[in-house]
């Protein structure tokens, strides 16, 4: 039920972000969702792409430090308090969110949010028990 995300270390200097996206473009890799965490010195770019392994390989060859992490894609009702409800459920289940970001595409009429949990398995259990829809990786990569 987990989705593969790649993260890339990016120094704060001009052109690095452009280089990552260009490298991916040249290899015909499509970015499905992204988030950039930044500090004063460096950034961490997190991506969901349609071809995870190829993306990882290509970026490594170009000298980037790349990691693969498992995240969870969750359908969230696209209405006021939709996300709040889910966060409450997670909180009630004792699961911590490390970070999260929104997916561009919708699933039916729902928004999709990518979550990085401290314990993904426990999080999925809590969500499913509460009838929240968790999306399969294959679905997410090609949405």
């Amino acid at each position, binding site marked *: 039920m987990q989705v593969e995300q790649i*993260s890339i270390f990016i*120094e704060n200097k001009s052109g690095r972000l452009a280089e990552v996206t260009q490298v991916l473009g040249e290899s015909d890799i499509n970015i499905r969702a992204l988030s950039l965490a930044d500090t004063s010195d460096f950034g961490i770019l997190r991506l969901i792409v349609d071809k995870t392994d190829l993306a990882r390989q290509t970026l490594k060859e170009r000298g980037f430090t790349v990691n693969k992490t498992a995240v969870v894609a969750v359908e969230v009702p696209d209405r006021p308090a939709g996300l709040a409800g889910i966060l409450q459920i997670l909180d009630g289940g004792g699961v911590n969110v490390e970070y999260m970001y929104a997916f561009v595409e919708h699933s039916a009429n729902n928004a999709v949010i990518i979550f990085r949990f401290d314990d993904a398995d426990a999080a999925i259990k809590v969500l499913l028990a509460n009838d929240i829809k968790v999306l399969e990786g294959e679905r997410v990569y090609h949405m």
Partner: protein
Amino acid sequence: MIWNDEFETLPREAIEALQLKRLQQTLERVYATVPFYQQNFKKVGATPADIRSLDDLRRLPFTYKQDMRDNYPYGLFAAPLNQIVRIHASSGTTGKPTVVGYTRRDINMWAELMARSYAAAGANSSDVIHNAYGYGLFTGGLGAHYGAERLGASVIPMSGGNTQKQILIMKDFGSTIITCTPSYSLYLAEALAQEGIKPGDLKLRVGILGAEPWSEEMRSQIEANLGIKAIDVYGLSEILGPGVAIECIEAQNGLHIWEDHFIAEIIDPDSGEVLPHGERGELVITTITKEGIPMIRYRTRDITRILPEPCICGRTHIRLERLSGRTDDMLIIRGVNVFPSQIESVLVGIKGVEPHYQLIVEREGNLDTLEVQVEVNEETFSDEVKVLQQLGNEIRKQIKDLLGITCKVRLVEPKSIARSEGKAKRVIDKR
């Protein structure tokens, strides 16, 4: 194996008697042939005849690198050019290079001392010695080369650079010993890993590494990454080149300096006073057999101490503690003495961190700032900001604990710190 059993295991009294005799001969020689030394001795009212014991040596003035520059290029030579068979020079990053000349006997002696050094590092005539020290004006390449031939080993004169070719030859020719700088050995290990070559795939068993200061932690990492024993060798062109002192493979603790050819003193670098055995200070070397350019009380600027205890290997020559750095590599940051090797030891001690680092020193207002740049690799990288920040904090904390100074840690992308194929450039001082 001990290469020259007779001289390497001489009783202490015999070493000292030999040193005195050779010292007196050297002093006579330089006094007669080198105006600089004659004037220098006269300044303190001494003649060679006044030096009647090894302790009397401390009456003579020091010789500095600047003296070599002032007498550029041949002013300190004690032999006419028709007796000089080879000339080397230092890189001379600041000002003119320092020039040294060797007579045929000097070259012979150098090969002998380097052969001793190889043997002390566990090498023998069956070894294939992959010599990746640079050939040229730098003494490393040719010094290590002639010693390997003297030992009877098969030497591959690789010189530095062209890492892909180094790897190919190392694999195909079955190199068993590599001679290069410690930083280059790590660079090689990295390149080997990238090509999927494991230490076990190579025949490499010993690295004889020198020409820059390195830490014990870096040794562990080199030994693990290359699957070899890493041996510290010491030398400097002003004195000879590689082969002045080396660790024995038995103890890997302190470098035996070949005392039948050199006299080592440790001095307080500020006062110039000779320090007793065991105290740390600047190494001062007097050559007692060299003909081309003898050096009297040469200030090496290297910091070490003498370990006088007998060594388990059976050699009677004293050992120098692993050299922690040069007085001119030493940074003074907010009044604290900092050697790059100290910071290196912190970095290598943290799991996953590799010793590819650079120190940037700047002055903001009246305050010195130190920035430690460390490369992030797959092992230390995380998708979570806090994990990387913890890494930075850990490095900062350990440096603060060790040196008492606060620094800024900047994590940088892999390979963004220039890899050296010779001596690593660790410090950028912008003050």
